[in-house]
């Protein structure tokens, strides 16, 4: 089985090159996908990268949700296609109702770019199997609208079903229950605000390190695809 991992470029996507590089670094085949194309080019998994799709002038991710490529991705995700939404990609997944809840303006009202300590709470997803449960990792965040919110019922459900994937160790933005990332019930769709693709090389990762704590997101999916 091949391991073709697609990365979608919307107009305004910024971290698409970084995601493609991360996919390549772990030995998978990176495939660039274009927002106007419904065809997913036989990819086995999809990354929705960070950025400001369509400028995010309305609500982050609100326009991207309606792009042709998302029609195919939403349908595929419901059938089990692994999808990882990073930052703006997480916002798109919430807008698409593949994941519950929403991302709103940070508590401090400012854009925050910093190396963030996190805890991996679920290793049963397609994207986190290479971590150990409870593992503490360091991965950058960089966003202005990263504060996760959902109604109490949804939050309780996420907790009960073990779908909180990563949590902040020192909550930077007021996210509900320190949530930094979540999964759908099947575990194939994961969205998170931190940027694992920015923590994949000693040269460019968080400083002071560890610099490559983001790699397991990409090795996890590679192993799963190769094993399939």
């Amino acid at each position, binding site marked *: 089985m091949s391991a073709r991992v697609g990365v979608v470029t919307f*107009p*305004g*996507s*910024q*971290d698409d*090159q*970084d995601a493609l*590089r991360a996919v390549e670094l772990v030995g998978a085949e990176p495939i660039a996908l274009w927002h106007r194309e419904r065809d997913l080019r036989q990819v086995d998994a999809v990354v929705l990268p*960070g*950025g*400001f799709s*369509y*400028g*995010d*002038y309305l609500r982050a991710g609100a326009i991207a949700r309606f792009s042709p490529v998302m029609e195919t991705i939403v349908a595929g995700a419901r059938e089990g296609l692994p999808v990882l939404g990073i930052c703006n990609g997480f916002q798109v997944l919430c807008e698409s109702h593949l994941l519950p809840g929403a991302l709103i303006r940070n508590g401090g009202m*400012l*854009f*925050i*770019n*910093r190396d963030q300590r996190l805890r991996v709470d679920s290793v049963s997803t397609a994207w986190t199997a290479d971590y150990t449960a409870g593992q503490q990792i360091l991965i*950058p965040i*960089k966003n202005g609208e990263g504060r996760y919110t959902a109604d109490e019922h949804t939050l309780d459900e996420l907790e009960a079903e073990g779908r909180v994937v990563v949590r902040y160790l020192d909550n930077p933005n007021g996210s509900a229950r320190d949530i930094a990332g979540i999964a759908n019930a099947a575990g194939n769709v994961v969205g998170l605000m931190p*940027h694992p*693709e*920015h923590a994949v*090389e000693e*040269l*460019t990762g968080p*400083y*002071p390190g560890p610099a490559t704590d983001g790699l397991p997101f990409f090795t996890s999916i590679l192993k799963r695809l190769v094993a399939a």
Partner: protein
Amino acid sequence: MTAPEQNRNSTRPAYVVDTVEHAAASPDVQLPYEALGVKPDEYDRIREILGRRPTSCELAMYSVMWSEHCSYKSSKVHLKQFGEKAPDVDFLLVGPGENAGVVDVGGDLAVTFKIESHNHPSYVEPYQGAATGIGGIVRDILTMGARPIAVMDPLRFGPADAADTHRVLPGVVRGIGGYGNSLGLPNIGGEIVFDPCYAGNPLVNALAVGVMKKSEIKLAQAHGPGNKVILFGARTGGDGIGGASVLASATFDDGRPSKRPSVQVGDPFMEKVLIECCLEIFAEDLVVGIQDLGAAGLSCSTSELAAAALQQTGVGGMDVQLDLVPLRDATLLPEEILMSESQERMMAVVTPADVERFFGICEKWDVTATVVGTVTDTGRLRITWHGETVVDVDPRTVAHQGPVYHRPYHRPAWQDELQAATPDSLSRPKTGEELRETVLRLAGDPNLADKRWVIEQYDHRVRGNTVLAHGEDSGMLRLDDESNLGIALATDGNGRYAKLDPYTGAQLALAEAYRNVAATGARPLAVTDCLNFGSPEDPEVMWQFAEATRGLADACQVLGTPVTGGNVSFYNQTNEQAIHPTPVVGVLGVIDDVSRRTRSAFEHEGDVLLLLGETHDELGGSEWAHVVHGHLGGLPPRVDLERERLLAEVLIAGSRDGMLSAAHDLSDGGLIQAVVESALRGGHGARIVLPDTVLDQVGGDPFVALFSESAGRAVVAVPRNEELRFTEVCRSRGLPVARIGVVEGEAVEVRSQFSIPLEELRRAHTGTFPALFG
């Protein structure tokens, strides 16, 4: 995207057009040229050039193209030294005069970089001023054919606790983040400086850098009669029109938007799309020439493109139909369309055969593109509006033949007095306890304090090539994943030094940026400068400018780093009060292997600390005198350019050969501030023992050893097993080196003087910005 015919703005505003014909027939009509900033003798010259009075559209063009901002009329005679004294180098591919300079960085790669000011707009409207400052400089880089890969922002504000600074700074920072982050460009460095002289005149400079294949350099020239002139990107609106409304106000009819912002409004999404669109167009080699629309908008792009072709080949000219320009506001009049500074627009010259493919790429990116004109061989720039000719000029007279002023200048009468008021009489800390307090005070001073509150609002990671950024001596980027070839950039400036002695101050700015680049292991290559000054009409300001440019040109010659381009910003003054002369210098360096970079942090217990260079009693213009005594007087530190070059060679060799654990340049706040910064960054303390060799240089006074700002110095951390080899490298080259201590413990300690726990230092250093702005 629409075909040109459909795009014509069908509803022509009711308006009596001042045509060329009409202008020739009505020589006595008075145009409000003075309201546009055109001096009476300049107006006479325009009449002489045209052989008639200008039309109002022509006057709009001349007024904006002959402005100080566009024509450099006051600075030109001084700036030409950068060419005359340019060092003889083989890596300069494009020098000053184009949108940005281009240097060969090895392999098949070229790098283009430039710094510009957006001072005045950022004072009026901090967010949009700073945002469009980024947008403008990034388009300059793009215009050269390069992919923009990073930005940096040297910023200067009034006092940190002043009410107006709390209006300006947060807006500027949010604007830089809001625009730059949305553009997907890492922000990899800059400066934040506070001084009362910038109250009312903040300096918001922006540097951008881009990379391209050497073979893909693009130039702003409209060659080839018959080629099409395409305007693409955002629609043209009424923002940033400035004085042009004066021309229209007398005659326009009712129903037009009356309030128009004088500051342009940025749309980073449009610019991001425009960048990707342009890069695809460049990759397919579809443009003959290209120019961005910045200051002076269409007036500038049309006249510069046409003039460059005429200048180069003697053949050229351009016909433009102004009514084809896509508008956001259909009521705009021709004068306003010509002067609008709406952002995110580009103009390309394309052969007829390539037009369809060009439009295809624009369509892919949803970018509006319109053929608005044709290259001709008439030697004239002719612009029509709804069939009537409103401009008919030789484009060179607009773009290149503006006035040149030899402004009078003289050394200010107060200069001697200022230099005589040395810091020698200021009371200095004498006891260990007084030194300790001074260290903490400076570490927490807004100029030296941790800037995390600001830089956390910028994305420095995007594109995944940022090797060093804020907090390091330079910003460093990987250019090539395979070879690890990279570049480093640093910007520096010190208005206090330049006020005391503009010649030396400009050289010190260069020396510091050069040293910063070398401290990270990169070889300094070339220079861009942003010269921020008061009014050129003040002979004393003009003297400062003349001295600073002379100093910079002389120093660039000695260091072998040519000025490749830059920007002059005059009129940074309120009434009679000018800012300190503030030349900000950006230095670009190259590093063969970015994994060899040197960081500034003390990371390893037991490393030996060495002080490179010589320390003298040089506290004139120092941070200590400024913070503790509010004093500015005496002379700035001396500059020894040969020493700077030697220091750089040693730092680069140390990095290349893996001898250095850390290096940090010594500048504001002196040795002790550098040690504090490196210790906090690495989380390891330092035990300092000031050796006699150093104390002897400063009359035995530990205060001077710790706080003097002598140039040509750096502190390095060296593994014990490299100490001998490294000190031998220094000695064999004649660079003074002194062992001053070790990396050790949880405190910064100066033996027999004081010890400060890292936690206490950290509180002082990091608490300032959140307390001020959080």
